[in-house]
């Protein structure tokens, strides 16, 4: 009855490679678990499923009600039962962690056949090859460091362009506050609070971010840049609506579109939310968050799917088909058009009418940052660290945002302590 990790890993050592040839009757089949049961994510994954069926496969998607934790519980229960799905949603460093508990599929042959590695941002590659070969594929990319500005609010304070440094941002926010506009329209949920720190820090200094939040270097965690970031975070907290705690940022959008709230620092997905609420994207200026040194940074959030080793030939064939499709340009285009993200491949042309200005701008920044090595992984969206470390850090950050008695110095100290405790 005791499940020994050794027994599970015995299969992992021999990660499944190419399948045996399929008999003419058996159609490739994919069983898939995710949390994407509705909304644009649900529509996008269903679209992918339909494409799989058009190519002759069988698509069996069981979305798990709830959020990511419920999906991971289900995944873990299925793995314990010895019945993992053919593929499932999983992202960031968790791919490495979970790949140790169950055998996965080696996608190297397919990936090199498609010449895929050269086409995607380097930071992403490492996450999907934890043991040196591809076992997962990214599905879409979002930028978390997007600045949305309400044009009506800008008009009210006589601003005609977006702030380019934090000093300009702070000055503009002060103007807005004086004019009776709530400067920051972010929400009060955990990951939103975490995002605000990563936005502040990445805007202050790219390498400080890399050292502190991605490498967890103790010196970087206690550096002057970190202190500055916490001070900026305190300013954000003061400029938010005090009654917003624990609520999703979308409740602020009506006021934001009217000009009663000024600026929203959010991921690119907010475009879709604004559109669905019936908002007019012309009322919104979309750009990068302020950057104190050098060109804009791109803080990356990506959804991925991981492939679990199965002996059944129809599932193995289904996995090959799904992987091939996921790497194709047209599939990625359709996926990103549905959700408002950017395709993973950097060779996609976004000039057509199906793409929004926001997506074009983000994609340009991605390509630029890719070349100048200023792509970072999002902390708040579980890309930079594994779940336990992320959760411990966000505990500190969300507490800091909602408790103004914590000083920036204390915030920095608490964050470093939380990282130690979570790792120990």
């Amino acid at each position, binding site marked *: 009855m005791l499940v020994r990790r050794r027994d599970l890993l015995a299969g992992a050592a021999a990660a499944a490679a190419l399948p045996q040839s399929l008999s003419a009757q058996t159609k490739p089949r994919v069983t898939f678990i995710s949390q994407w049961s509705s909304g644009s994510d649900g529509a996008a994954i269903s679209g992918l499923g339909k494409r799989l069926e058009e190519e002759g496969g069988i698509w069996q998607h069981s979305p798990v009600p709830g959020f990511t934790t419920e999906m991971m519980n289900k995944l873990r229960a299925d793995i*314990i039962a010895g019945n993992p799905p053919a593929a499932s949603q999983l992202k960031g460093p968790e791919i490495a962690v979970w790949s140790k508990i169950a055998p996965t599929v080696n996608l190297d042959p397919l990936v090199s056949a498609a010449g895929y590695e050269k086409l995607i941002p380097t930071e992403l590659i490492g996450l999907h090859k934890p043991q040196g070969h591809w076992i997962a594929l990214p599905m879409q990319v979002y930028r978390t460091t997007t600045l949305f500005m309400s044009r009506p609010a800008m008009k009210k304070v006589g601003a005609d362009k977006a702030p380019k440094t934090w000093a300009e941002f702070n000055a503009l926010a002060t103007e807005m506050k004086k004019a009776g506009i709530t400067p920051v329209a972010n929400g*009060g*949920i955990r990951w939103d609070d975490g995002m605000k720190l990563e936005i502040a820090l990445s805007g202050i200094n790219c390498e400080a971010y890399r050292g502190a939040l991605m490498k967890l270097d103790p010196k970087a965690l206690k550096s002057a840049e970190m202190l500055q970031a916490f001070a900026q975070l305190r300013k954000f907290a003061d400029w938010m609506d005090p*009654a917003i705690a*624990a609520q999703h940022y979308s409740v602020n959008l009506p006021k934001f579109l009217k000009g009663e709230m000024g600026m929203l620092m959010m991921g690119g997905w907010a475009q879709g939310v604004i559109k669905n609420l019936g908002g007019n994207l012309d009322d919104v200026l979309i750009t990068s968050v302020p950057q104190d040194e050098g060109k804009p940074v791109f803080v990356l959030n990506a959804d991925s799917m991981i492939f679990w080793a199965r002996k059944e030939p129809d599932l193995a064939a289904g996995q090959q088909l799904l992987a091939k499709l996921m790497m194709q340009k047209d599939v990625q285009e359709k996926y990103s058009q549905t959700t408002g993200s950017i395709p993973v491949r950097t060779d996609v042309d976004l000039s057509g009418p199906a793409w929004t200005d926001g997506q074009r701008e983000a994609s340009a920044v991605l390509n630029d940052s890719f070349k100048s090595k200023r792509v970072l992984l999002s902390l708040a969206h579980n890309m930079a660290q594994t*779940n*336990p470390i992320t959760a*411990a850090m966000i*505990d500190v950050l969300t507490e800091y945002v909602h408790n103004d008695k914590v000083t920036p110095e204390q915030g920095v100290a608490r964050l470093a302590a939380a990282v130690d*405790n979570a790792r120990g």
Partner: protein
Amino acid sequence: MKGRLGRYLPLLVIWLPLLINAGHVVGFTAWTTWLSFTPSDLLPEYDWAGLRSYRSVLRSENTEVAYINLLIYSVGFVGLTTLVGFVLAVLIDQRIRAENLLRTIYLYPLAVSFVVTGTAWGWLFNPGLGIQKFARSLGWSDFRFDWITDRDFALYTIVFAAVWHAAGFAMALFLAGLRSIDPDLAKAAQIDGAGPVRYYLRIAAPGLAPIAISVLVILLQFAIKTFDLVRAMTGGGPGIATTLPALVVYDFMFQRGQLGRGSAAAVLLLLSLLLVLLPYYAYAQWRARKERAANE
């Protein structure tokens, strides 16, 4: 043949289900305790890691907030529910008309799941959606009822919703107790000229002591296990202001994928339960002994 079967069948019938249930209680508790001493993360591992998980859990910011919250929440929830339940029972006991209707109204929240309770009260407490918005739309533009977004007050909204859910149950138990008080006692009180207030406070209440203790224990274990309600109402927020030990267990085990620490948190929760149960057990033994002595 029948004789032998007749002798063993009852034993089988008695023991089999009991063993399965007792087995699962002992087995799961032992397994969790064992895991709390291992370095398990996503999946159970069985190597020894000493007190590492306990140290990590105890140093985690969650845990401290959770147990402080548990104290405040338990006192508030158990105290208020018992009080409201007792008052309602006394009131209903007054030979009122529409007793059936009122009793159903007070009792029905028990039928509603904690998830729905949390969701509905979450809507009502939401300042942008519920009571505050409604009052403001009526013209009362300074009305504030945003407890649920306030770090210091959010916990009380949870107490409120929990009392709403459980007060009917406390009322039912107290009412049952009131109705099983010896009628001769009531007659004697009336002969003595005791008014209703004196009756309830001096005579009925002491007779209800055993029931009150049962109510307290049942409510306390509700409080300690509270999970669905908080998740549905505030998700533990704002920040971590409304987190409770059961949520900390879930967070470590499933959100963070650290089974070792989650198990340690669970063991801590069980220990705090024991803190409540052992005194109750001692009390029950003492009362049983007293009764036996009285009957001799």
